Protein backbone atom coordinates (compact mmCIF):
# COMPACT_ATOMS: atom_id res chain seq x y z
CA UNK A 1 0.00 0.00 0.00
CA UNK A 2 1.50 3.25 -1.06
CA UNK A 3 1.35 6.60 0.62
CA UNK A 4 -0.45 7.99 -2.41
CA UNK A 5 -3.61 6.23 -1.35
CA UNK A 6 -4.07 8.98 1.18
CA UNK A 7 -4.26 11.34 -1.74
CA UNK A 8 -7.76 10.00 -2.14
CA UNK A 9 -9.99 12.51 -0.42
CA UNK A 10 -12.36 10.00 1.10
CA UNK A 11 -9.60 7.86 2.42
CA UNK A 12 -7.92 10.95 3.79
CA UNK A 13 -11.04 12.04 5.62
CA UNK A 14 -11.61 8.62 7.06
CA UNK A 15 -8.05 8.29 8.28
CA UNK A 16 -7.77 11.74 9.80
CA UNK A 17 -11.09 11.26 11.51
CA UNK A 18 -9.51 8.39 13.38
CA UNK A 19 -6.09 9.74 14.19
CA UNK A 20 -6.89 13.37 14.92
CA UNK A 21 -8.41 13.13 18.43
CA UNK A 22 -5.36 11.57 20.07
CA UNK A 23 -3.12 13.95 18.16
CA UNK A 24 -5.06 16.95 19.43
CA UNK A 25 -4.51 15.66 22.93
CA UNK A 26 -0.79 15.03 22.59
CA UNK A 27 -0.07 18.36 20.94
CA UNK A 28 -2.06 20.22 23.58
CA UNK A 29 -0.25 18.44 26.39
CA UNK A 30 3.14 19.11 24.85
CA UNK A 31 2.57 22.79 24.20
CA UNK A 32 0.91 23.54 27.49
CA UNK A 33 3.37 21.35 29.37
CA UNK A 34 6.37 22.89 27.68
CA UNK A 35 5.15 26.44 28.17
CA UNK A 36 4.23 25.89 31.82
CA UNK A 37 7.51 24.20 32.45
CA UNK A 38 9.37 27.00 30.78
CA UNK A 39 7.36 29.81 32.32
CA UNK A 40 7.15 28.61 35.90
CA UNK A 41 10.00 26.24 36.47
CA UNK A 42 13.07 27.61 34.77
CA UNK A 43 15.49 30.12 36.25
CA UNK A 44 16.20 33.53 34.78
CA UNK A 45 19.17 33.97 32.52
CA UNK A 46 22.01 35.88 34.16
CA UNK A 47 22.17 38.37 31.28
CA UNK A 48 18.67 38.48 29.85
CA UNK A 49 16.77 38.12 33.08
CA UNK A 50 13.28 36.77 32.83
CA UNK A 51 13.00 37.72 29.14
CA UNK A 52 14.66 34.46 28.30
CA UNK A 53 11.28 32.84 28.86
CA UNK A 54 10.14 34.31 25.57
CA UNK A 55 12.35 31.81 23.83
CA UNK A 56 9.76 29.06 24.39
CA UNK A 57 7.36 30.84 22.10
CA UNK A 58 9.74 32.64 19.81
CA UNK A 59 11.91 29.80 18.63
CA UNK A 60 9.20 27.18 17.99
CA UNK A 61 7.10 29.76 16.17
CA UNK A 62 10.04 30.82 14.02
CA UNK A 63 10.80 27.18 13.30
CA UNK A 64 7.25 26.47 12.19
CA UNK A 65 7.00 29.66 10.17
CA UNK A 66 9.75 28.44 7.91
CA UNK A 67 8.72 24.81 7.91
CA UNK A 68 5.14 25.65 7.04
CA UNK A 69 6.35 27.37 3.90
CA UNK A 70 8.57 24.40 3.18
CA UNK A 71 5.63 22.07 3.55
CA UNK A 72 3.59 24.24 1.19
CA UNK A 73 6.44 24.04 -1.30
CA UNK A 74 6.47 20.24 -1.16
CA UNK A 75 2.70 20.04 -1.42
CA UNK A 76 2.74 22.41 -4.38
CA UNK A 77 5.34 20.28 -6.10
CA UNK A 78 3.22 17.19 -5.55
CA UNK A 79 0.23 18.98 -7.05
CA UNK A 80 2.21 20.17 -10.05
CA UNK A 81 3.69 16.74 -10.71
CA UNK A 82 1.04 14.26 -9.66
CA UNK A 83 -2.08 16.42 -9.44
CA UNK A 84 -3.43 15.05 -6.18
CA UNK A 85 -6.13 17.40 -5.05
CA UNK A 86 -5.54 16.71 -1.39
CA UNK A 87 -2.03 18.02 -1.61
CA UNK A 88 -3.09 21.29 -3.20
CA UNK A 89 -5.72 21.71 -0.52
CA UNK A 90 -3.18 20.90 2.19
CA UNK A 91 -0.98 23.71 0.91
CA UNK A 92 -3.96 26.04 1.04
CA UNK A 93 -4.78 24.89 4.56
CA UNK A 94 -1.23 25.40 5.81
CA UNK A 95 -0.82 29.00 4.69
CA UNK A 96 -2.89 30.73 7.38
CA UNK A 97 -1.22 28.63 10.06
CA UNK A 98 2.12 29.70 8.66
CA UNK A 99 1.09 33.35 8.79
CA UNK A 100 0.13 33.10 12.42
CA UNK A 101 3.43 31.43 13.25
CA UNK A 102 5.32 34.16 11.40
CA UNK A 103 3.35 36.79 13.24
CA UNK A 104 4.07 35.20 16.60
CA UNK A 105 7.78 35.06 15.81
CA UNK A 106 7.74 38.70 14.68
CA UNK A 107 5.72 39.94 17.63
CA UNK A 108 7.61 38.06 20.33
CA UNK A 109 10.84 39.07 18.66
CA UNK A 110 9.81 42.71 18.59
CA UNK A 111 8.75 42.61 22.23
CA UNK A 112 12.00 40.92 23.15
CA UNK A 113 14.03 43.37 21.18
CA UNK A 114 12.79 46.33 23.21
CA UNK A 115 14.70 45.40 26.43
CA UNK A 116 17.57 43.58 24.71
CA UNK A 117 18.48 45.84 21.83
CA UNK A 118 16.63 48.95 22.91
CA UNK A 119 14.48 48.96 19.79
CA UNK A 120 11.36 47.24 18.58
CA UNK A 121 12.69 46.72 15.16
CA UNK A 122 16.05 46.63 13.50
CA UNK A 123 16.82 45.73 9.93
CA UNK A 124 18.64 42.64 11.03
CA UNK A 125 18.84 40.00 8.29
CA UNK A 126 16.86 37.42 10.16
CA UNK A 127 14.14 39.86 11.11
CA UNK A 128 14.04 41.28 7.63
CA UNK A 129 13.76 37.93 5.97
CA UNK A 130 10.87 37.12 8.25
CA UNK A 131 9.14 40.29 7.18
CA UNK A 132 9.64 39.24 3.58
CA UNK A 133 8.33 35.78 4.37
CA UNK A 134 5.28 37.38 5.91
CA UNK A 135 4.67 39.31 2.70
CA UNK A 136 5.01 36.10 0.69
CA UNK A 137 2.40 34.43 2.86
CA UNK A 138 0.04 37.37 2.41
CA UNK A 139 0.40 37.29 -1.35
CA UNK A 140 -0.08 33.54 -1.48
CA UNK A 141 -3.27 33.66 0.58
CA UNK A 142 -4.61 36.63 -1.34
CA UNK A 143 -4.10 34.78 -4.61
CA UNK A 144 -6.04 31.76 -3.34
CA UNK A 145 -8.84 34.03 -2.24
CA UNK A 146 -9.00 35.92 -5.51
CA UNK A 147 -9.64 32.97 -7.83
CA UNK A 148 -12.96 31.18 -8.08
CA UNK A 149 -12.02 28.09 -9.98
CA UNK A 150 -10.26 25.79 -7.50
CA UNK A 151 -8.06 24.01 -10.04
CA UNK A 152 -6.88 27.27 -11.55
CA UNK A 153 -6.20 28.59 -8.08
CA UNK A 154 -4.21 25.48 -7.20
CA UNK A 155 -2.13 25.77 -10.36
CA UNK A 156 -1.41 29.45 -9.96
CA UNK A 157 -0.65 29.36 -6.26
CA UNK A 158 1.65 26.39 -6.61
CA UNK A 159 3.68 28.11 -9.28
CA UNK A 160 3.75 31.24 -7.13
CA UNK A 161 4.99 29.10 -4.26
CA UNK A 162 7.79 27.63 -6.37
CA UNK A 163 8.91 30.97 -7.77
CA UNK A 164 8.42 32.62 -4.40
CA UNK A 165 10.63 30.07 -2.67
CA UNK A 166 13.48 30.81 -5.03
CA UNK A 167 13.09 34.51 -4.41
CA UNK A 168 12.75 33.99 -0.66
CA UNK A 169 16.11 32.24 -0.62
CA UNK A 170 17.58 35.01 -2.76
CA UNK A 171 16.21 37.61 -0.37
CA UNK A 172 17.75 35.76 2.51
CA UNK A 173 21.18 36.02 0.88
CA UNK A 174 20.51 39.58 -0.11
CA UNK A 175 19.64 40.77 3.38
CA UNK A 176 22.54 38.82 4.82
CA UNK A 177 24.87 40.62 2.51
CA UNK A 178 23.16 43.92 3.07
CA UNK A 179 23.40 44.13 6.83
CA UNK A 180 25.14 42.28 9.56
CA UNK A 181 22.87 41.21 12.32
CA UNK A 182 22.15 41.82 15.94
CA UNK A 183 20.32 38.55 16.21
CA UNK A 184 22.01 35.58 17.78
CA UNK A 185 22.94 32.60 15.70
CA UNK A 186 21.61 29.12 16.11
CA UNK A 187 22.40 27.91 19.60
CA UNK A 188 20.78 24.52 19.38
CA UNK A 189 23.13 23.02 16.85
CA UNK A 190 24.47 19.55 17.44
CA UNK A 191 28.07 20.22 16.53
CA UNK A 192 28.56 23.26 18.72
CA UNK A 193 30.08 23.10 22.13
CA UNK A 194 28.21 25.86 23.86
CA UNK A 195 24.58 25.01 23.47
CA UNK A 196 22.12 26.71 25.75
CA UNK A 197 22.10 25.25 29.19
CA UNK A 198 20.01 22.15 29.61
CA UNK A 199 17.60 23.85 32.00
CA UNK A 200 16.45 26.00 29.12
CA UNK A 201 16.83 23.36 26.46
CA UNK A 202 14.49 20.63 27.69
CA UNK A 203 11.33 22.73 27.97
CA UNK A 204 12.30 24.27 24.66
CA UNK A 205 12.40 20.84 23.07
CA UNK A 206 8.98 20.13 24.50
CA UNK A 207 7.59 23.33 23.07
CA UNK A 208 9.14 22.71 19.69
CA UNK A 209 7.68 19.23 19.55
CA UNK A 210 4.36 20.65 20.68
CA UNK A 211 4.36 23.35 18.00
CA UNK A 212 5.26 20.83 15.31
CA UNK A 213 2.45 18.54 16.33
CA UNK A 214 0.03 21.40 16.73
CA UNK A 215 0.86 22.58 13.23
CA UNK A 216 0.36 19.08 11.87
CA UNK A 217 -2.97 18.64 13.58
CA UNK A 218 -4.22 22.02 12.46
CA UNK A 219 -3.18 21.38 8.88
CA UNK A 220 -4.77 17.95 8.78
CA UNK A 221 -7.99 19.28 10.24
CA UNK A 222 -8.06 22.29 7.92
CA UNK A 223 -7.31 20.12 4.92
CA UNK A 224 -10.37 18.07 5.83
CA UNK A 225 -12.39 21.27 5.93
CA UNK A 226 -11.09 22.31 2.54
CA UNK A 227 -11.94 18.90 1.08
CA UNK A 228 -15.49 19.18 2.37
CA UNK A 229 -15.74 22.69 1.01
CA UNK A 230 -14.71 21.50 -2.42
CA UNK A 231 -17.11 18.65 -2.37
CA UNK A 232 -19.84 21.06 -1.39
CA UNK A 233 -18.93 23.35 -4.27
CA UNK A 234 -19.05 20.43 -6.66
CA UNK A 235 -22.47 19.36 -5.37
CA UNK A 236 -23.83 22.87 -5.61
CA UNK A 237 -22.56 23.25 -9.15
CA UNK A 238 -24.23 19.96 -9.98
CA UNK A 239 -27.44 21.21 -8.48
CA UNK A 240 -27.23 24.35 -10.54
CA UNK A 241 -26.81 22.28 -13.65
CA UNK A 242 -29.96 20.40 -12.91
CA UNK A 243 -31.80 23.70 -12.40
CA UNK A 244 -30.70 25.11 -15.70
Amino acid sequence: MSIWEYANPKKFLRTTERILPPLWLVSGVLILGGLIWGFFFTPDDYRQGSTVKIIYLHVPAALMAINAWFMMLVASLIWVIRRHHVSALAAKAAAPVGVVMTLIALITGAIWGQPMWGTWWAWDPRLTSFLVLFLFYLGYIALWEAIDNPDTAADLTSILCLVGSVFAVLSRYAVNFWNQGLHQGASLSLDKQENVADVFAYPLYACMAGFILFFLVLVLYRTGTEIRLRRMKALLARERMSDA
Partner: protein
Amino acid sequence: MIEVRDLGVSRGAVPVLEAVGFCLAAGEALVLRGPNGIGKTTLLRTLAGLQPPLRGEIIGDREQIAYAAHADGLKLTLSVEENLWFWARVFGSEDIAPVLSAFNLVGLRTRPAGSLSAGQKRRLSLARLMVTGRRIWILDEPTVSLDTASVQLFASAVVAHLSAGGAAIMATHIDLGIDGRLLDLAPFKARLPALDFDDGGFL
Protein backbone atom coordinates in the same frame (compact mmCIF):
# COMPACT_ATOMS: atom_id res chain seq x y z
CA MET B 1 -8.19 16.61 -41.09
CA ILE B 2 -9.53 16.71 -37.62
CA GLU B 3 -11.32 14.02 -35.72
CA VAL B 4 -13.00 14.28 -32.38
CA ARG B 5 -13.93 11.27 -30.29
CA ASP B 6 -16.11 11.18 -27.24
CA LEU B 7 -15.08 14.70 -26.29
CA GLY B 8 -16.19 16.21 -23.00
CA VAL B 9 -15.55 19.90 -22.37
CA SER B 10 -15.94 22.01 -19.26
CA ARG B 11 -16.02 25.68 -18.40
CA GLY B 12 -15.21 27.01 -14.99
CA ALA B 13 -14.95 23.47 -13.60
CA VAL B 14 -18.51 22.69 -14.73
CA PRO B 15 -18.96 20.05 -17.46
CA VAL B 16 -20.76 21.63 -20.39
CA LEU B 17 -20.84 19.16 -23.27
CA GLU B 18 -20.10 15.45 -23.41
CA ALA B 19 -19.68 12.66 -25.91
CA VAL B 20 -19.22 15.01 -28.84
CA GLY B 21 -17.78 13.25 -31.82
CA PHE B 22 -17.25 14.12 -35.46
CA CYS B 23 -14.76 13.77 -38.22
CA LEU B 24 -13.95 16.46 -40.70
CA ALA B 25 -12.15 15.85 -43.98
CA ALA B 26 -10.35 18.41 -46.12
CA GLY B 27 -12.81 20.55 -48.03
CA GLU B 28 -15.58 20.11 -45.51
CA ALA B 29 -17.26 22.63 -43.24
CA LEU B 30 -19.02 21.93 -39.99
CA VAL B 31 -21.58 24.37 -38.63
CA LEU B 32 -22.31 24.20 -34.91
CA ARG B 33 -25.78 25.11 -33.78
CA GLY B 34 -27.35 25.38 -30.38
CA PRO B 35 -28.98 27.86 -28.03
CA ASN B 36 -27.01 30.50 -26.12
CA GLY B 37 -24.87 29.03 -23.40
CA ILE B 38 -24.96 25.46 -24.70
CA GLY B 39 -21.18 25.45 -25.02
CA LYS B 40 -20.27 26.32 -28.61
CA THR B 41 -17.56 28.71 -27.59
CA THR B 42 -16.23 26.28 -25.03
CA LEU B 43 -16.04 23.51 -27.63
CA LEU B 44 -14.28 25.73 -30.13
CA ARG B 45 -11.76 26.92 -27.54
CA THR B 46 -11.03 23.32 -26.67
CA LEU B 47 -10.52 22.43 -30.31
CA ALA B 48 -8.20 25.40 -30.69
CA GLY B 49 -6.13 24.11 -27.81
CA LEU B 50 -6.85 26.99 -25.46
CA GLN B 51 -8.21 24.71 -22.80
CA PRO B 52 -7.73 21.02 -22.11
CA PRO B 53 -10.61 18.63 -22.79
CA LEU B 54 -12.30 17.01 -19.83
CA ARG B 55 -12.17 13.65 -21.58
CA GLY B 56 -11.99 12.17 -25.04
CA GLU B 57 -9.50 13.07 -27.67
CA ILE B 58 -8.89 15.44 -30.54
CA ILE B 59 -6.89 13.95 -33.38
CA GLY B 60 -5.41 16.37 -35.80
CA ASP B 61 -2.64 18.83 -36.26
CA ARG B 62 -2.90 21.62 -33.70
CA GLU B 63 -0.44 23.62 -35.72
CA GLN B 64 -2.90 23.83 -38.59
CA ILE B 65 -5.61 25.58 -36.62
CA ALA B 66 -6.48 29.28 -36.77
CA TYR B 67 -9.00 30.55 -34.25
CA ALA B 68 -11.24 33.61 -34.39
CA ALA B 69 -13.05 34.41 -31.18
CA HIS B 70 -16.09 36.47 -30.26
CA ALA B 71 -13.79 39.42 -29.59
CA ASP B 72 -12.11 40.98 -32.59
CA GLY B 73 -8.65 41.06 -31.02
CA LEU B 74 -7.63 44.22 -32.84
CA LYS B 75 -5.30 46.90 -31.58
CA LEU B 76 -7.40 50.00 -31.92
CA THR B 77 -4.49 52.40 -32.22
CA LEU B 78 -2.81 50.53 -35.07
CA SER B 79 -3.93 50.90 -38.66
CA VAL B 80 -5.71 48.18 -40.60
CA GLU B 81 -2.53 47.34 -42.47
CA GLU B 82 -0.42 47.29 -39.34
CA ASN B 83 -2.82 44.96 -37.62
CA LEU B 84 -2.69 42.55 -40.54
CA TRP B 85 1.05 42.83 -40.94
CA PHE B 86 1.54 41.96 -37.31
CA TRP B 87 -0.35 38.71 -37.65
CA ALA B 88 1.20 38.01 -41.05
CA ARG B 89 4.63 38.22 -39.49
CA VAL B 90 3.60 36.10 -36.52
CA PHE B 91 2.41 33.38 -38.89
CA GLY B 92 5.19 33.87 -41.41
CA SER B 93 3.07 35.09 -44.32
CA GLU B 94 4.55 37.41 -46.88
CA ASP B 95 1.72 39.30 -48.42
CA ILE B 96 -1.43 40.93 -47.20
CA ALA B 97 -2.63 42.53 -50.43
CA PRO B 98 -4.93 39.68 -51.59
CA VAL B 99 -6.47 39.53 -48.16
CA LEU B 100 -7.19 43.23 -48.12
CA SER B 101 -9.01 42.99 -51.39
CA ALA B 102 -10.84 39.79 -50.51
CA PHE B 103 -12.44 41.53 -47.57
CA ASN B 104 -12.90 44.85 -49.27
CA LEU B 105 -10.52 46.61 -46.93
CA VAL B 106 -8.33 48.32 -49.50
CA GLY B 107 -9.94 51.70 -49.00
CA LEU B 108 -9.58 51.46 -45.24
CA ARG B 109 -5.95 50.37 -45.37
CA THR B 110 -4.40 53.25 -43.50
CA ARG B 111 -7.22 53.95 -41.08
CA PRO B 112 -6.64 53.16 -37.40
CA ALA B 113 -8.71 50.16 -36.40
CA GLY B 114 -10.34 52.19 -33.67
CA SER B 115 -12.06 54.40 -36.23
CA LEU B 116 -13.73 51.54 -38.09
CA SER B 117 -17.40 50.73 -37.77
CA ALA B 118 -18.38 47.49 -36.06
CA GLY B 119 -18.81 45.62 -39.33
CA GLN B 120 -15.56 46.93 -40.76
CA LYS B 121 -13.74 45.76 -37.63
CA ARG B 122 -15.28 42.36 -38.05
CA ARG B 123 -14.14 42.18 -41.66
CA LEU B 124 -10.64 43.00 -40.53
CA SER B 125 -10.65 40.34 -37.88
CA LEU B 126 -11.85 37.77 -40.43
CA ALA B 127 -9.15 38.91 -42.82
CA ARG B 128 -6.70 37.94 -40.12
CA LEU B 129 -7.65 34.30 -40.64
CA MET B 130 -6.51 34.36 -44.23
CA VAL B 131 -3.06 35.72 -43.47
CA THR B 132 -2.44 32.89 -41.03
CA GLY B 133 -2.17 30.46 -43.92
CA ARG B 134 -3.56 27.71 -41.73
CA ARG B 135 -5.81 25.02 -43.08
CA ILE B 136 -8.40 24.56 -40.35
CA TRP B 137 -10.43 27.63 -39.51
CA ILE B 138 -12.28 27.72 -36.22
CA LEU B 139 -14.78 30.54 -36.20
CA ASP B 140 -16.97 31.72 -33.36
CA GLU B 141 -19.99 33.62 -34.73
CA PRO B 142 -18.01 35.09 -37.60
CA THR B 143 -20.76 37.16 -39.16
CA VAL B 144 -21.75 39.24 -36.16
CA SER B 145 -22.34 42.86 -37.24
CA LEU B 146 -21.83 42.08 -40.93
CA ASP B 147 -24.29 43.35 -43.53
CA THR B 148 -25.56 41.04 -46.25
CA ALA B 149 -22.90 42.04 -48.77
CA SER B 150 -20.12 41.37 -46.28
CA VAL B 151 -21.68 38.04 -45.32
CA GLN B 152 -21.45 37.14 -49.01
CA LEU B 153 -17.79 38.16 -49.08
CA PHE B 154 -17.16 36.00 -46.07
CA ALA B 155 -19.08 33.04 -47.47
CA SER B 156 -17.12 33.11 -50.67
CA ALA B 157 -13.86 33.34 -48.73
CA VAL B 158 -14.87 30.22 -46.85
CA VAL B 159 -15.85 28.41 -50.02
CA ALA B 160 -12.53 29.30 -51.61
CA HIS B 161 -10.73 28.08 -48.53
CA LEU B 162 -12.61 24.78 -48.61
CA SER B 163 -12.03 24.18 -52.28
CA ALA B 164 -8.31 24.81 -51.69
CA GLY B 165 -8.37 21.82 -49.35
CA GLY B 166 -9.01 23.65 -46.12
CA ALA B 167 -11.62 22.91 -43.51
CA ALA B 168 -13.76 25.11 -41.27
CA ILE B 169 -15.69 24.68 -38.07
CA MET B 170 -17.96 27.54 -37.15
CA ALA B 171 -20.60 28.39 -34.61
CA THR B 172 -23.42 30.63 -35.70
CA HIS B 173 -27.05 31.45 -35.04
CA ILE B 174 -27.92 32.52 -38.56
CA ASP B 175 -27.87 30.82 -41.89
CA LEU B 176 -24.78 31.61 -43.91
CA GLY B 177 -25.56 29.86 -47.16
CA ILE B 178 -22.41 27.77 -46.88
CA ASP B 179 -23.27 24.18 -47.40
CA GLY B 180 -21.62 22.30 -44.64
CA ARG B 181 -22.74 19.66 -42.24
CA LEU B 182 -24.89 20.93 -39.39
CA LEU B 183 -24.18 19.73 -35.89
CA ASP B 184 -26.76 20.63 -33.30
CA LEU B 185 -25.12 20.60 -29.89
CA ALA B 186 -28.29 20.43 -27.83
CA PRO B 187 -28.27 16.60 -27.55
CA PHE B 188 -24.72 16.65 -26.23
CA LYS B 189 -25.49 18.79 -23.23
CA ALA B 190 -23.63 17.33 -20.28
CA ARG B 191 -25.95 15.36 -18.06
CA LEU B 192 -25.62 15.51 -14.36
CA PRO B 193 -22.66 13.42 -13.37
CA ALA B 194 -23.77 10.29 -11.61
CA LEU B 195 -23.96 10.99 -7.93
CA ASP B 196 -20.81 9.39 -6.75
CA PHE B 197 -20.31 9.03 -3.07
CA ASP B 198 -17.50 6.64 -3.70
CA ASP B 199 -13.97 7.52 -4.44
CA GLY B 200 -13.87 8.53 -8.08
CA GLY B 201 -16.01 11.62 -8.24
CA PHE B 202 -15.70 12.71 -4.70
CA LEU B 203 -14.58 16.21 -5.52
